[in-house]
Every structure is written in C-alpha cells, then in structure tokens.
C-alpha cells in the first residue's frame, strides 16, 4: 500500500510516515495542497490522509482535485477541529466517509486504512 499524508504540520507527517514505514507501508508526505498535487502527478498512491485545514487549497477542495486526477484513490480526513458538524457538511458534499480527530492512534489509522482498501 502506498500512502500520501498531507498536513501543514511537517513534524506530524514526517513522524507518521516513519511509523507507517516501520509497519511496511510506504508513505510520502506534503505540507500543502500544491505539493500534494505535484506528488500525485509523479507517483502512484492507493490512499491519501488529508488534514481539513491546510495552507492554500483547503483539504475539501484538495480532495476534489485529487479525486479528479486519481479516481481510484481512497481518502481519509484528519482534523484537529472539535466541530464534527463542519466536517459533516464538507463530507456530505465530497462523499468522503472516513475522518479521524487528532490526535489519532496508529492502530485507529491502520484500521481505517485497511477497511478502505478492502472495500
């Protein structure tokens, strides 16, 4: 499984990528929407984990753009916001079913990733 992590907190995605790597999952990361789009132009990914709030293109719009480029890709949203209503509105619009509230546990993330990949 190849995973793309997108969050403006570089230390977070770096650490998460290393932890996924220890578990045999190849993970790359980007800290803004433009860098994420550039990465999916160059490399193939099965799944992306996106923060809702990132600089420039927000997570919801980035999801739409990535989905257009790679229709087969699966998505998980990760958010630091307590407001699930905001996310619900965005997810209803974009069709993303999975989101995790920060801080997430690696087991929770892996569980969601596996669930999505086996759908």
């Amino acid at each position: 499984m190849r995973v793309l992590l997108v969050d403006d907190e570089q230390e977070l995605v770096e650490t998460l990528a290393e932890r996924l790597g220890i578990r045999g999952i190849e993970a790359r990361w980007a800290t803004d929407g433009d860098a994420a789009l550039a990465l999916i132009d160059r490399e193939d990914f099965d799944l992306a984990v996106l923060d809702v709030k990132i600089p420039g293109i927000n997570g919801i719009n980035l999801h739409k753009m990535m989905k257009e480029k790679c229709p087969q890709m699966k998505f998980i949203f990760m958010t630091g916001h307590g407001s699930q209503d905001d996310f619900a509105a965005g997810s209803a619009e974009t069709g993303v079913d999975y989101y995790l509230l920060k801080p997430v546990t690696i087991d929770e993330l892996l569980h969601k990733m596996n669930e999505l990949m086996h759908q």
Partner: protein
Amino acid sequence: MVDRTDVGNASELQYFGKMTASISHEIKNVMAIINESAGLLEDYSLMAEKGMAIDPERLKVVSDRVTMQIRRADRITKNLNNLAHSVDEFHKSIDLKETLALAVGLSGRFADMRSIRLEFQPPSDVPTVITSSFHLLNLIWRVLDFAMGMSGTEKMIGLTYDSDAESVKIRFTGLAAAPNAPEAIFPTAGEAVLLRILGATIQQDAKGGVITLVLPKDVRQQVKTDC
C-alpha cells in the same frame, strides 16, 4: 434593529471566538505531534526488544522534536493568557511593542493558511499607550485580516509603528497597490465601532499599499476632548 452597541459586542465575541478556536487548533496539533513522537519511541523500544539496533541519533531527533513542541505550546498558552488578561481593565497602560507582537502571534496561523508572511518590525522606541488593550487587539486583527486579503505579490504584510507626543501611528504595509480601488470598502461598521472606542482613525494610501492606524497615546484625554 442592530445598533452600534450590538455591532461592537458581536465583534468582540467573534474576535475572542476566532482567536481561541485557532489556539485550540494549534494545541491539538502540538498534542498530535507529541502523541506520534511518543508512539515512535514505543516503536523503537519494541524494535530494540526484538534485537534490532536503534541509532541513538534517531532518539535524539524525537527528543528534540518533543522539546520544540513543548516550547511551542508554552508560546501558545502565553498568548492565550495575555489575550484573556487584555479584558482585565477597560483602560490601562500598555507596552505597544508587546501588544503588537501579541496581535501578530495570534494572527500567525491565519497568515499561514493564506501562505502569507507577517513581519513585525518594531523600532527601538517602545511607547506606552493608555487604551483598551482588548479593543486594540481586535482592531489590529481586523486590519491585518483586510490587509492579508489585499496582499501584494510578495505575500508579506509588514507591521511597524512610530510615535510623537500625542499619538502613535501603526503602519500596515505590503498591500497590493490599488490606486483605482473603490473607496469605503474599509473600514466597515465593525472597525468604526472599535475606532470610536479607541479614539483612533484609519488612513489609507491605496497607491502605496499602506494602511495607517492613528491611535492617541491616552484615550481618556481623547474622550474628554470629544465630550
């Protein structure tokens, strides 16, 4: 009907809500990084138990990362504490340099989200101003928010000040020069209420891309004069 008091109260609550929501988001991010760092240390210890060699340098990287996040959380909570204490007294003597640094610190995440750099360039002069600290923070945020929305190609908004015997001038630079911009889009009713409370005025130089906020050194004198 919404009167001036309603506009002022709504603006105050909105500002407080916006800043505290942003702070809570930042604290969540700090916790997420510390959480993952702790998890990574746990991964390393499990790997070591299985007989795999762990480079001590990797442990140091994780340790430094946690230390940096603790310092970051300390800065964030200091800003929150200073924001909370800004309502302790209506009029009080404030250090303008500290107040502007706080305003910039509180606005940092919003600037990051717009990929804009905020540069506070304080001169050596540190004027003391008697004013309403909370309303000044609110007004500076509103000007910064407007300025970021109008920022030029450099995507950098500068903030500096100078003072004379009666007043201080806080300058916001880096707005896109717009000599033909329509007038009266700024300040809005929200800023007008704050300007009145602070006895301040706003000057716009659309051609130069500069907004100047003129603030009396002692708002109490200003209010007396107005009466």
